[in-house]
């Protein structure tokens, strides 16, 4: 299957909400050079799903409605800064930007901001997935502990031996420790000794 270079942005869809016409024309021209399609020029819902990236002028902040935030979906946001005052930066931070550009815009910097935004977004999504997985495992620790206690009582084993027993059973049945623990505690299932 054809795969673009990791630094090629061709075919990506962008929402571009920029107030100043000169800045907007610079972005438009640079996006044409990079092969990026501008699918919306204001903060509104995009016809066919969410954009891949959004450039939001700080003059549009704070976002007026939840619908505007929803229009962005989970796409990375590049904030366009007109001023570096803390009050403005606070509004920008609420967008959780993946990258930023300082106005007035030049063609230089736009490509780097896009690559950083996509890369940061991808890494953030991976981290979020990892956090979800870890939270899930943390929640199931209680079940594992209950299963260990049950096996300790039933087989008169020490805690490490009971855990090893469960782990071996999980491996044999190609299940996670959490899954086998849930079966032990909920169904009263007692795995056979290996």
């Amino acid at each position: 299957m054809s795969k673009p270079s990791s630094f090629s942005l061709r075919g990506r869809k962008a929402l571009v909400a920029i107030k100043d016409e000169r800045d907007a024309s610079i972005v438009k021209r640079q996006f044409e050079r990079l092969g990026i399609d501008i699918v919306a020029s204001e903060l509104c819902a995009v016809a066919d799903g969410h954009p891949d990236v959004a450039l939001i002028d700080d003059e549009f902040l704070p976002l007026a409605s939840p619908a505007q935030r929803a229009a962005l979906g989970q796409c990375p946001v590049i904030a366009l800064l007109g001023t570096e005052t803390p009050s403005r930066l606070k509004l920008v931070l609420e967008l959780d930007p993946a990258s930023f550009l300082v106005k007035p815009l030049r063609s230089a910097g736009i490509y780097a901001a896009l690559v950083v935004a996509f890369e940061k977004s991808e890494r953030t999504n991976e981290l979020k997935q990892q956090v979800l997985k870890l939270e899930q495992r943390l929640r199931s620790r209680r079940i594992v502990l209950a299963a260990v206690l049950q096996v300790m009582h039933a087989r008169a084993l020490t805690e490490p031996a009971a855990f090893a027993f469960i782990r071996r059973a999980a491996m044999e049945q190609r299940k996670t420790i959490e899954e086998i623990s849930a079966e032990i505690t909920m169904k009263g299932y007692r795995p056979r000794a290996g």
Partner: protein
Amino acid sequence: MMVSFTPRRRKPSMTKPSIPVGIIFSQHGPYQAMGCEIFKSAMMAVDEINDQAEFDFSIIPHVRDPRGIVSEYHTACDDLIRNVGVEHIVGCYTSASRKQVLPIVERTDRLLWHPARYEGFECSDNVIYVGASPNHNVLPLVRYVLDNLSREIFCVGSNYVWSWETNRVTRELATAAGGRIIAERLLELGESAVGHMVDEIVRRRPPVVFNTLVGSSSYAFIRAFHAATTAAGLDIPMLSCSLCEPELKIVGPASAGCITSSAYFESIRLPENRAFVARWKARYGEDSSPSVDGQSAYVSVYLLARALQRAGTSNIGEVRRAAAGLRYNSPQGPVWIDGGNNHCVLTPRLAVSNADGQFDIFWEADAPVKPDPYLTQLDVAVTPARDGASSGAPHLRVVK
């Protein structure tokens, strides 16, 4: 200082209006050999244009020599704009020097005509990039190597953006083709202690070596590489995207056999090139040769002059618009500026250096190729043909 004139309305008795143009090339310092070659080509074009009746103006060159000192480019450019009042500057060889000039030409809305090939990933409205883009030089060379020589490449280069980016593209293409970069060895700019790199190459015997070293580092490496591989009885092809005829003369016989990618070689068999080379030799000596970047500086001055003539003014907005798409049958063949990204449409070529200090061209694109400075059209998955199907990679073909 904007100059307006009406093309074709001037009476022969009238004095041509003068247009001041800045010329910034380092004729001294670490890369003075190439800087002088480029400067000589630019001045040749200026003199030719001033002698031609078809141009309704004269170019007054204001020459600055930053001596290879990066910060001096900023000073020279500032002086030309502030004190001389130039709107157009032809200059800069290295990317570091161009980056110094860029903020000033953008802030003051001037136009830099940049002749050298570079690594891409830049697109200023205040620069006309006349040299080759990465899709003109690196891509054809690496595709050719992967298709015809090897999928494993040993890279040597200077610790500089040109080598970093060239090696990055090479790595992506080689990896996608199931190959790899065997090693990537970098030297500081100007460093000539190349022994350890050559020793490693002789020990590891890679199928091919890609040399992106610049200037004196490259000359030292090519000589040492040739001596060591000859002594060891090895025949390892060397690749380059920058070697040119004046450098072949500097390096000597050791430079023969290098597979080189370039838009210009002195051996191009076009009437425009034969005439250009003849004029060059008449002016600078029978033993001298124009270089790819020198020829590009010559083309830059001509593209500027033709755009000025078309626009009827030196105003940069109008000149930029006039330059877009304006075709010029240059020594390297037809070229024009792509108005979408201010880079040059030109014809990529591959050649092998010979013992006479020239290049034997064995491949050229069927037609001029659009510039792709951000490599947006690069699809790394287009691998070299394995089943005889066309991969878009250049195949061996003698060009006479």
